[in-house]
């Protein structure tokens, strides 16, 4: 399978990366080279093979249902959560207006 410029533009839009015409033109052959190369995986007979979900067997753990059990990742850290925000107002992350 290969991709054309329209498809690459669609993928870039799905990935929320704005791309100009020149960049799209450059990406098309680069992505196709990679896609052509990974195509060889189709040769492998994978009937009756389960896809990998965990590489090292490990059971998922449960934790006690306690609010803010971990002081590092618990609540009441508003200032620290907002410390790196490009724009914060009134204790919230600020973004451009979404609804007209």
């Amino acid at each position, binding site marked *: 399978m290969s991709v054309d410029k329209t498809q690459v533009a669609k*993928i870039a839009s799905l990935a929320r990366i*704005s791309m100009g015409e020149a960049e799209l033109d450059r990406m098309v052959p680069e992505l196709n080279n990679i896609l052509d190369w*990974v195509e060889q995986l*189709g040769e492998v007979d994978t009937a009756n093979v389960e896809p990998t979900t965990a590489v090292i067997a490990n059971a998922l753990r449960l934790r006690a249902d306690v609010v803010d059990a971990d002081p590092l990742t618990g609540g009441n850290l508003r200032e*620290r959560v907002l410390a790196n925000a*490009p724009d914060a107002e009134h204790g919230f992350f600020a973004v451009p207006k979404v609804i007209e």
Partner: protein
Amino acid sequence: MTDYTELGVAQIRDGVRGGYFTAAEVADAFNAAVAGATSLNAFITPTPDVAVRHAALVDADRAAGKELGAMAGVPIGMKDLFATRGVQTTAASHILEGFVPEYESTVSHNLWSAGAGMLGKLNLDQFAMGSSNETSYFGNVVNPWRRTGSDVALTPGGSSGGSSAAVAARIAPAATGTDTGGSIRQPAAFAGICGIKPTYGRCSRWGTVAFASSLDQAGPMARDVRDCAIMLGAMAGFDAKDSTSLDLPVPDWEGALSADLKGKRVGIPREYRMDGMDPEIEAAWDKGKTMLRDAGAEVVDISLPHTKYALPAYYIIAPAEASSNLARYDGVRYGLRELPEGAGLQDMYAATRAAGFGDEVKRRVLIGTYVLSAGFYDAYYTQAQKVRTLIARDFAEAWSECDIILAPTTPSAAFPLGEKSDDPLAMYLNDVFAVPASLAGLPAMSVPCGLNGQGLPLGLQIIGRELDEQGVLNAGLAIEARAGFDARPEKWWG
């Protein structure tokens, strides 16, 4: 007077513990070495004050008669992929430039608890995506090694290129690395140092900038096998904050080091012998077999039939996970925001990510988005995960015939900066020998075994069973003891 920059992890720790010198003296010496090697561009953010502060804590503990940790007084370089509280953490990207974490990664926290100090944040390929340290927003790292009689700048490997260059140039006795598909082992090989990626789950991923979560593992890079064993012990351990962290005790890897391989079987995978292989790499591999045989091991031929499919499977799985992980960089919560005049929220996302990500990161996010998109998911992603199962099965079957596997680390020695940067596929092939162990989650290490005809170091790779870091380190030690690798780059940098 001792030149402290000549000392490794064990020597510094023992010297500080024994009171032969202070952590402060060591930190000062390495801080000066870092300041005197800016032309390597190994560090994005040097933190001499942090190193001095960490050293003072260790010296105060010693004065108070407290027991000192496994890394007591050892100043290290920290790959700039680990979140460090109060110190800029960039992942070598523009999108995270200026990001100052409010928290500490578990791995770095463990190292500081063990008495290590931080010389600074090391350069890397952007988001750890690259094999030559040429995708960093903060410029290329230059390998301290040069070909004999040449001043052509060579790559230190990637993605942990700042780490490998810093250790090889002796401006840090050791450094952290991360390995997703060879990012510890390949740079270690290119710089003539040791590096080990442990079993997936040994080191917590909490606070490490995520690239491909099912593959990412932290590990140490240092001048010798013992130093790697010590530092890995300090980095590893169960962490409830990482759902894939292994809830197992950390073995005393340093204490159990032994270069006696009697009774061990070393597998040589025939599929790693590729057409057109560099004869010097092949010769190094043969030399490795002889060394392990001399250490008492039996060498056997094995087969890992799906080897050739590992790299293409990796280049579906890793970008797929990356496209998902990197969705968080949206210009809202941290990092860069690009807000063109009159732009709405969606435009802001797209403009931020366009300005903040480099070309290789964009390429991988696009590939990942494509292989996960409706209609292509099964053909690409599911098929790659099935091939991954077969690759892991190849290893599982091999373990009935051998205890460890010996292979080259890389298909070549370090190459000139710029040589492969225009050809993503040629760059990807650097990791052909490293990726299979990553896909199977196995511990694997690179140790230097000698110089090629151009005077550049070559590495040998040892792959072990899951959780058998000891077996890997011991085989590494056996090679190290016999290779007698004491070559070092002649100082040209300033």
